[in-house]
């Protein structure tokens, strides 16, 4: 099953990134939010069934610019991880995010999403509350929003659970973040009936920031060199640049840019 096109070094590198992205001591959305925004006010609830603790969302100032911030949250201890469902978002989380995105659009604020999830929450209640519909609705509505959306993958970008906050004008990844349609373990157990093959499969999935940049799926990679505070400063700089770029576009252009971005993936296929 080994493929000549994926070298040993690439496999080791990919798996290393998976481990780094999942590291329990890694910085979380809230750490970044506290560092780069002022006057952050958290807003709760989907106005329907509840408040999802895997998503921290609210309004804030980014320098002189009002913004809406939405971040998937994990913890740095077992207890914290349990509290926020290991960053696995439920339908009410996606709907809270969408509610605040619509609010941002009403008040013409840019939307900044931080993605960090192993995937959408797999559970009885999540299915009962329409997990599939909630994700689909976000993909549909996010395409249509007329204010800038920036999505920054800071750790794990797990499948549809990540994409539901990832339909953006620009998608940015941290150097050690990953973004994949399926977890390496999930893929290995489905294809090879052996989740221990996950490290090799991680290489085959090409889920690293560099690979995804080369594919044109993401726009920018933020270096993780230096202290956390210097990493957060680079995130801030990157947002600054993108907000400036987006300020040159009107609402319809922003929407069109976002739709085109996804429309073009696969449009080269020839049909008869």
């Amino acid at each position: 099953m080994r493929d000549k096109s994926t070298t040993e070094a690439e496999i080791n590198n990919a798996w290393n990134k998976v481990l780094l992205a999942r590291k329990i001591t890694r910085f979380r959305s809230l750490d970044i939010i506290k560092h780069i925004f002022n006057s952050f006010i958290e807003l709760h609830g989907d106005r329907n069934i509840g408040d999802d603790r895997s998503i921290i969302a609210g309004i804030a100032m980014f320098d002189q610019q009002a913004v809406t911030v939405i971040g998937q949250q994990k913890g740095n201890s077992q207890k914290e991880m349990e509290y926020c469902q290991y960053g696995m978002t439920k339908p009410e989380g996606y709907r809270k995010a969408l509610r605040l995105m619509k609010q941002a659009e009403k008040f013409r604020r840019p939307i900044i999403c931080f993605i960090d999830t192993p995937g959408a929450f797999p559970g009885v209640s999540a299915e009962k509350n329409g997990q599939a519909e909630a994700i689909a609705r976000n993909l549909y509505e996010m395409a249509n929003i007329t204010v800038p959306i920036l999505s920054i993958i800071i750790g794990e970008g797990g499948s549809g659970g990540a994409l539901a906050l990832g339909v953006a004008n620009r998608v940015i990844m941290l150097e050690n973040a990953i973004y994949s349609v399926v977890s390496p373990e999930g893929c290995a157990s489905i294809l090879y009936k052996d989740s221990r093959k996950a490290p090799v499969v991680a290489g085959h999935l090409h889920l690293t920031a560099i690979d995804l940049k080369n594919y044109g799926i993401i726009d920018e990679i933020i270096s993780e060199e230096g202290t956390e505070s210097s990493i957060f400063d680079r995130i801030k700089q990157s947002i600054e640049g993108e907000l400036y770029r987006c300020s040159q576009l009107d609402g319809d252009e922003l929407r069109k840019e976002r739709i085109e971005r996804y429309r073009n993936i696969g449009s080269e296929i020839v049909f008869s």
Partner: protein
Amino acid sequence: MSQNLFFKCTKCGYITERKKVEVNNYVCLSCGYYETLDYKKRLDMIIDQNTFTETNIHNDFHDPINFPGYRTKHEEILSRSNLNEAVITGSGYIDGQKVMIGVMDTRYMMGSMGVVVGEKITRLFEDAEDEKLPVIMFIASGGARMQEGIFSLMQMAKTSAAVLRFSEAGGLYISVLTNPTTGGVSASFAFLGDIILAEPGALIGFAGKRVIEQTINEKLPFNFQTAEFLMDHGYIDLIVERKNLKSTLSDILKIHDQENNKFKLEDNIGSINLLINS
């Protein structure tokens, strides 16, 4: 025993003459199980005879991340079932009403969505907008195509945006969820229909049952992730028996035909006057 003369139910194993099952739309005569249909049987059941025209036919194999074993698997399926992708799209008539239709086929890699599937479905909606026709999608899919990695994930965003543009243009989209409708396909165009129908007993959901059991250690309710479960919780408009599917679709199309609507957008005011005068 000839395989062609007899048919064995996938669920209960009941064996009967193929002709009898065929007449019963491949619903088991013993246990009522709905067999998953290939695209040809589905089209025969729904589309008026000899009116289907396939669109966006493609021939190349796409392997965007050069995934080991992908091409071999593709070639295996191609030689076994002469199928080179998981969706067939085209136009046809339902009781004389023209529609664009897409039918997913689980014989090709569990009906999973890769770039070609995403592109065909996107073009189906774009063609339907150009021709001002309704779209009917028959969903049968295990979700995203793992072997295409991130490119497969992006098709969820692409197809959802395609539904958005079509919907903004006023188009009618009916999605029919059949067994199975799961993963990334359920979490994109499948659940974005103006009207969402489902076949009885169909498996519908986002996460896999085994994943849920393992991760959460929860006991699953008896009808968990069935069409009936989803309708009970408000996510499906109507469960339709297979034998009634064509007539139900035909009625929905008729009700959406603007010729049958005096209140249609363009000349709403004029129509109201007409009603008062008559």
